[in-house]
């Protein structure tokens, strides 16, 4: 029983960064921007969050600078993709490299360390105990006492669902994704909406990064996003960008991530348990493709739109 509680608890913890990045990516998904840069935005957010928290001694400044870092990366991406009309895939890949190189470089430049930066001066995000729920056995430890961004993430899922499907901005966003020229023709700038979508994804990826480096753990390590941005991208494709689907799927991924962690110390070598989330992504893609394949097979189309 205790193990079960521990596993569900850890799956919520590891689901959150994928959920947050996925919600950010939902905006760009509906605006038809191929946002491969989420990985980089998250990494930059994680770094600036640690830098902010360390230098100011306040977690709030840390979270805000994490968001600012993600937003800055998004602004670069938007500038290139929307203003200069460069290829999204190309620019996103370059931005990911810039994030990896830039954070590694800054790690040495600012903190004079290689690999990882840890310090007691980094203030981590406070954990919230939910008043009544924390008293309930089993459910209490599962739901209560997480870093507060976990709860923000769940609320954001509902907010994004509402924002994309029930507001004027959301309608325009989806219209841009359907047919940008038609949107331009009625006097709404599709470029502006695309840029806004990219910025929204930057903010949420930055928040995901801040959660990683100030909530999930309290340190910054080289390439610490470790493919979560890409898993988020896979989850978006699997759920077709629906925020409620994202919430569910990221919990599934979190569960397998947590499963990997709790299998450590058993007979299975730890390297195999660490593979689990990535294998699960492939398996999930298999089921998704099978379902899509029986509905309507258009392999060339999807490929052409990717690159």
């Amino acid at each position: 029983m205790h193990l079960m509680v521990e596993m569900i608890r850890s799956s919520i913890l590891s689901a959150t960064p994928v959920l947050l990045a996925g919600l950010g990516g939902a905006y760009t998904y509906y605006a038809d921007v191929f946002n491969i840069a989420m990985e980089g935005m998250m990494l930059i957010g994680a770094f600036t969050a640690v830098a902010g928290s360390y230098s100011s001694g306040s977690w709030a400044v840390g979270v805000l600078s994490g968001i600012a870092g993600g937003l800055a990366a998004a602004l670069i991406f938007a500038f290139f993709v929307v203003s200069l009309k460069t290829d999204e895939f190309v620019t996103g890949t370059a931005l990911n490299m810039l994030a990896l190189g830039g954070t590694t470089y800054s790690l040495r430049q600012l903190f004079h360390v290689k690999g990882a930066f840890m310090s007691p001066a980094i203030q981590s995000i406070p954990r919230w105990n939910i008043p009544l729920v924390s008293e309930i056995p089993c459910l209490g430890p599962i739901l209560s006492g997480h870093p507060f961004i976990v709860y923000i993430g769940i609320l954001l899922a509902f907010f994004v669902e509402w924002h994309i499907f029930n507001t004027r901005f959301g309608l325009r966003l989806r219209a841009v994704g359907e047919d940008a020229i038609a949107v331009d023709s009625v006097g709404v700038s599709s470029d502006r909406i695309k840029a806004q979508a990219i910025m929204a994804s930057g903010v949420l990826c930055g928040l995901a990064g801040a959660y990683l480096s100030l909530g999930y753990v309290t340190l910054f390590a080289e390439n610490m996003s470790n493919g979560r941005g890409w898993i988020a991208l896979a989850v978006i494709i699997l759920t077709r960008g629906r925020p409620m689907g994202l919430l569910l799927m990221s919990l599934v991924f979190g569960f397998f991530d947590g499963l990997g962690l709790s299998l450590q110390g058993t007979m299975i070598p730890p390297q195999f348990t660490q593979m689990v989330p990535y294998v699960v992504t492939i398996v999930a893609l298999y089921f998704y493709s099978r379902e899509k394949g029986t509905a309507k097979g258009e392999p060339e189309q999807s490929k052409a739109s990717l690159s």
Partner: protein
Amino acid sequence: MKKQLLPAIIGIVVALLAGLIILWAQGYPPLQSYAALFSYSLFSRFAFFSTLDKATPLILTGLSAAVGFGSNCVNLGQPGQFLIGAMAVTAFGIAVDLPAAIMIPLSILVALAAGACWSGIAAGLRRRFNMDEFITTLMLNFIADYFTLYLISGPMLDTKMYSPLTPMTNSGAWLPIWNGFGSAFLVAVAAFAVVSVLWNRSKIGYEWRAMGQNPIFSRTGGCRNDAAYVWAMLLSGALAGLAGGLMIMGGMQHRFVKGIGANYAWDGVMIAIVANNNILATGLYALFFSVLQTGAMGMELETSVPSEFSLVLQAIVVLFVVASRESTRMLMNNIAAEMRMKRARGRDKGMGDGRRASNG
């Protein structure tokens, strides 16, 4: 190629200037740092040979990405294919002991085959189940990473050492080093020659390029897209695998060490991107990137700029070259449109009245 040259030069110059400003803003002597960057990568025999050494994996991973992207296969699995290639060569080199004349060609084949197998998984999933190779290759990277980590810290661990690495391979599989010149570079050059002939002169190369431009058009035009897709993926994986294999066969280490892949594979992806999947340009950018990476060590030595600066510089180069390529193209299109309009207007003035009259 000629059309690419101008934006490339503009992009590189602007990026180097941006790098200059970054260095200057952080209080380093910018010009001195750049002087060190180039003198430690080009202007001595030893420096030049180490640049070529570094270029070896970059050329191959760059070609791997260029072949993939150029034929519309989004193979982002170079890191995994690189590691699997390196691991296969290590295992082969430890298990088999033959004279170099047999061992070296066999090891090269093993590297090619191992890389192709790893990308072949993604190609198979695509063909059989229509799963996007772009996600499967990315996920296979992590699987390869953890799998090789498992091998070097468990079954293949050199128990005499204290960090996770394998024993050395048998010396038959070592590529000779002549006076500081690593012959692995020659293998990369040979691979480059083969790929550029295949790409530019062969039938399947034509199909790849057609598929890269427009898969629907190429299918309509009678290309065997499905077969060409699988071959492109296999070649792409094989090249990345060879890059990994040469890391073991060349150099001095001859063993699989944790972190052996470094950033070579992603650098290759960037090289192909900045070269716009052109094979010749891929080779040239690979050399340029290796100049930056090799020189960065010298820069750290001389002006104590952290060598990681080369990573930043590379990414800036990519962004600026791509941006300048797009803006030149847009500018050219605008100029062309303007000229066409002017010509049309000129014609209008001459014969417009008559036409209008006849129309009305």
